[in-house]
């Protein structure tokens, strides 16, 4: 009798455990699936951008013989690509905020950082070869901000730069680059333009502004 009572009680706990475990596993699997889909989407987008990046590399071979008409086309494509890369950066940040199981996106962020650096270098080449009068604004930021102060500051700087970009349109290229991933190509560029701390805004490879600056201040350096 006692055995039966204990047995039935035990069943309640076992059944509750199995029900909780089942729902837990299903929810976890669903979460994992959603995260993986999001990551895969970003990886797939990256592949597209990577092809465009390679295309830019190839273009650099033709820079020697470029004519004014091909310059126009190259600059147009460069702007389009820069816009895509910028929106992919936003997607990446959003996905990173939502993904809680896997750390795959850290690697993706590094790949995107390299892609954006490549975009910047191509832009510089295009600028020098074609002599096209557009501004380059490179935003160096913490890809992995450790303090709330940095998160808050970067969010505002990002909004300010977006505002400036909207105002200048196709006269300005905005390239956000994470400066704390210890990537040699990024470190070299930062060093060569004397960018010593983050966050920083490099305007036309001449002026470095550290921390927060108003849109008006940034605009005063753009278009000079």
């Amino acid at each position, binding site marked *: 009798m006692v055995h039966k009572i*204990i047995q039935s*009680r035990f069943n*309640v*706990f076992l*059944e*509750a*455990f199995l*029900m*909780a*475990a089942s*729902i*837990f596993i299903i*929810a*976890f699997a*669903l*979460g*994992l699936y*959603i*995260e993986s889909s*999001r990551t895969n989407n970003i990886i797939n987008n990256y592949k597209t951008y990577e092809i465009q990046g390679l295309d830019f590399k190839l273009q650099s071979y033709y820079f020697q013989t470029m004519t004014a008409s091909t310059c126009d086309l190259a600059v147009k494509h460069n702007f389009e690509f820069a816009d895509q890369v910028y929106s992919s950066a936003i997607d990446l940040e*959003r*996905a990173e*905020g*939502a*993904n*809680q*199981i*896997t750390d795959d996106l850290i690697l993706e962020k590094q790949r995107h950082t390299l892609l954006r650096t490549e975009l910047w270098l191509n832009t510089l080449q295009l600028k020098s070869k074609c002599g096209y009068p557009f501004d380059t604004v490179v935003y160096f930021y913490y890809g992995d901000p450790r303090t*709330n*102060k940095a*998160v*808050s*500051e970067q*969010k*505002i700087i990002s*909004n*300010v730069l977006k505002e400036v970009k909207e105002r200048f349109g196709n006269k300005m290229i905005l390239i956000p680059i994470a400066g704390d991933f210890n990537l040699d190509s990024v470190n070299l560029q930062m060093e060569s333009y004397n960018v010593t701390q983050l966050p920083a805004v490099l305007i036309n490879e001449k002026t470095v502004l550290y921390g*927060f600056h*108003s849109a008006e201040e940034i605009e005063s350096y753009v278009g000079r």
Partner: protein
Amino acid sequence: MNFFTAFYLVMFFFGLFFLFIFMILHYRNKDKLYSYPKPKIIPSVSIIVPAYNEENNIAATLNALINLEYPAGKKEIIVVDDESTDKTLEIAKKFAEKYSAIKLIHKKNSGKADSVNVGIKRAKGELIAVVDADSYPNKDALLKMIGYFDEVGVAAVTSRVLVKNKENWLTKFQVMDYSIIAWTRKLLDFIDSVYVTNGPISVYRKDVLLEIGGFDKKNLTEDIEVTWNILSRGYKTRMSYSAIVYTTVPEKFTVWVKQRIRWNLGGIQTIWKYWKSIINSPNYIFGRFVIPYVTTSFILALIGLFLVIRSIWITGSYHLYSLYYAFSGYSLFKYADFNFSISLLFIFAVIFLVCGIWYYKVGFKNSETGKKGIFSILAYSFIYRAFYVIPLVLAIYKMVRGDLRWYTK
């Protein structure tokens, strides 16, 4: 995976596990919720009323006890005045003069538990009913409780406590709170796990109370402690869902906080005193379920509190830092920035919310309040239950400081 995400997941799992225990128990036993055993014999009962400064309530309580349906000559009422500084003693004296069944003891102030112990020594009944001086049992409450003592091993039976004063938002929330507490306690009865024999009215075997040495004078929740003492020795405790007693609940938030501080402190004291019973107790269900369940509830509440504080800190400091930019005319948020991505914790939160609403809906439907709408359930869950953290934090603070005074009055 982030350490804090893992924390949340552990909480979700335990939350779901406990929730399903209650739901399974409910659906298996819903037809038996209100049933109670008819007593084969009517034993004599001594009703002890410990009273301290209860001039506003004691008369109504004594009237309710006088009116309790019970055979004449088998019921005595012992009022133990704990050196009240108001008119409690005076009022009790008048009742004692009017009704021969009422006996009055006046003693030096030494707390509720000691008052009950003094009453037990003077009691003549086979059963001891302890009734708070601000509680009012229904006429048939006692008769609906004593039948459980026919079962071998049952040492205590408790009742369903409902709220008498439904004056303001706080007391209305407590109506919901007490309803859920009573419902879950009854469900625990089906697995011999009633771990509180509440103060408003509970009945005990006198010989068992004498065996365990009465109520613990040092414990702030003597009703929990005495129940754990009984359970730890292998006795059973039961709850009669049909035996109803009304009690006066705090109408002011500060009084409510003080009461809950006492409940929290007493709970922690009791866990500390009986944690070894997890292994030692001859009562399997008490050692393996009741103690871990109550302890886990405290730990989960503390972890939850920590996570809430952390979340407030992160969000708060983020916005605090952004204030500087706001003053410069820059907004931290833009409509275009609004983004919603389904995350793992969001999925769990939705599941838990749905299960929680189901749990409360069933609980309220089977309690005094009757059916409750989603809005009421959400208000209860997210407003009233959120207040739980205040007394919990204060209780821990007082525990750390070694401040273990009686807080309610």
